[in-house]
């Protein structure tokens, strides 16, 4: 075998030999080879923040679990994406997300096409072992087309990133710390009074849950975040 060129790294994911560009993440390399790693905060076309921790993988030689979305491939890496330990932690993460706010799937606009609900089902989550917190959270319906329901927000920050990186408006941001964190519009003004919001709706399309939705429907239509990689690609070509 010829030695790898400087740009190419060779590694093992789930026992399969893989070559990847040195600027690729473990997640990208895995998905290119149709190895699935669950994600929630990651979205093709946006920067990665490693917020949800669902994509944690085991890397031989490291005791810590590493988030695949923000871990660059390295020469000789030996990555495991599926194990009892990882499954246990992924389920725990999902359970904590359900327990943290009020995710009432049965009456949620996103019922049937929610990433959190879908991942729970895919991970065999039949109940939440942690006590629910039942926080009292606001719903802001001041925008004439969209609503933000903080009860359903999992703080993935997809809305913050798409608004900043793609729309360039940076209407969304995060305030507070820890369990008190919340996504806000502008300087925590009602969304409808935001000076910067262009009403483009990108945040709604990328929201993985029922936290952001369009007014006028009891059940929101399936989200369509697929425009993002296309937009990003076209812009890069233009440059």
């Amino acid at each position: 075998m010829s030695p790898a060129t400087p740009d190419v790294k060779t590694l093992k994911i789930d026992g399969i030999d893989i070559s990847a560009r040195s600027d690729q993440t473990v997640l990208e390399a895995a998905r290119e080879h149709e190895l699935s790693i669950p994600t929630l905060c990651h979205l093709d076309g946006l920067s990665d923040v490693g917020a949800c921790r669902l994509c944690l993988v085991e890397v031989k030689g490291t005791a810590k679990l590493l988030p695949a979305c923000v871990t660059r491939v390295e020469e000789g890496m030996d990555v495991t994406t599926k194990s009892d330990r990882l499954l246990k932690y992924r389920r725990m993460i999902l359970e904590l997300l359900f327990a943290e706010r009020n995710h009432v799937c049965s009456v949620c606009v996103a019922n049937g096409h929610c990433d959190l609900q879908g991942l729970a089902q895919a991970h065999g989550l039949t109940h939440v072992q942690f006590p629910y917190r039942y926080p009292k959270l606001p719903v802001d319906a001041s925008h004439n087309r969209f609503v933000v329901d903080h009860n359903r927000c999992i703080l993935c920050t997809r809305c913050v990133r798409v608004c900043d990186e793609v729309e360039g408006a940076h209407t969304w941001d995060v305030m507070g710390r820890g369990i008190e964190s919340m996504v806000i519009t502008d300087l925590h003004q009602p969304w409808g009074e935001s000076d910067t919001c262009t009403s483009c709706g990108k945040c709604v399309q990328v929201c993985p849950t029922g936290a952001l939705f369009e007014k006028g429907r009891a059940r929101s239509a399936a989200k369509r975040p697929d425009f993002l990689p296309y937009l990003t690609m076209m812009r890069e070509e233009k440059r």
Partner: protein
Amino acid sequence: MSKVRLATVWLDGCSGCHMSFLDMDERLLDLAGRIELVYSPLVDHKEYPENVDVVLVEGSISSEEDLHKIKKIRARSKILVSLGDCAVTGNVPAMRNAFSTAEVLRRVYVENVSAPSPIPDQVVPALLPRVCPVHEVVPVDVFVPGCPPSADTIFWTLTELLDGRRPDLTGRTRFGA
């Protein structure tokens, strides 16, 4: 072979899970040959009996009566199944948890009616300060999420249990299904 003693219980839920149970249609006849329905809102038994093999519990724990009942049910049943999202997650009944019981009662009996009536404090069981899923109060053996779980899901769960297996619901139903 003796029949499996089945009970179904309706706590704080909308009865939708029981409707879904009835929605098994002619499959109920298959089940009838294998079970004895010893307690249910569908039949007229006043007291929850001893030695129940399988109990399907619909609804969350919302009042002192629910709490009293579920403890008795747990003590007298071998396999307790949390049936539906209210039993499994608290679901819609638990949406009142962001408010105090006083606020909730005032909203229902005073603010939200054209002819305000006194807030009942006799005969009806007192509300618990917080609605909770069944497994926060007593151990649960099988969880069947769904709002409601489909008749197919309930039938499959029951036949697994009747055949002596512990059903694995992975991929068969989900929260809000």
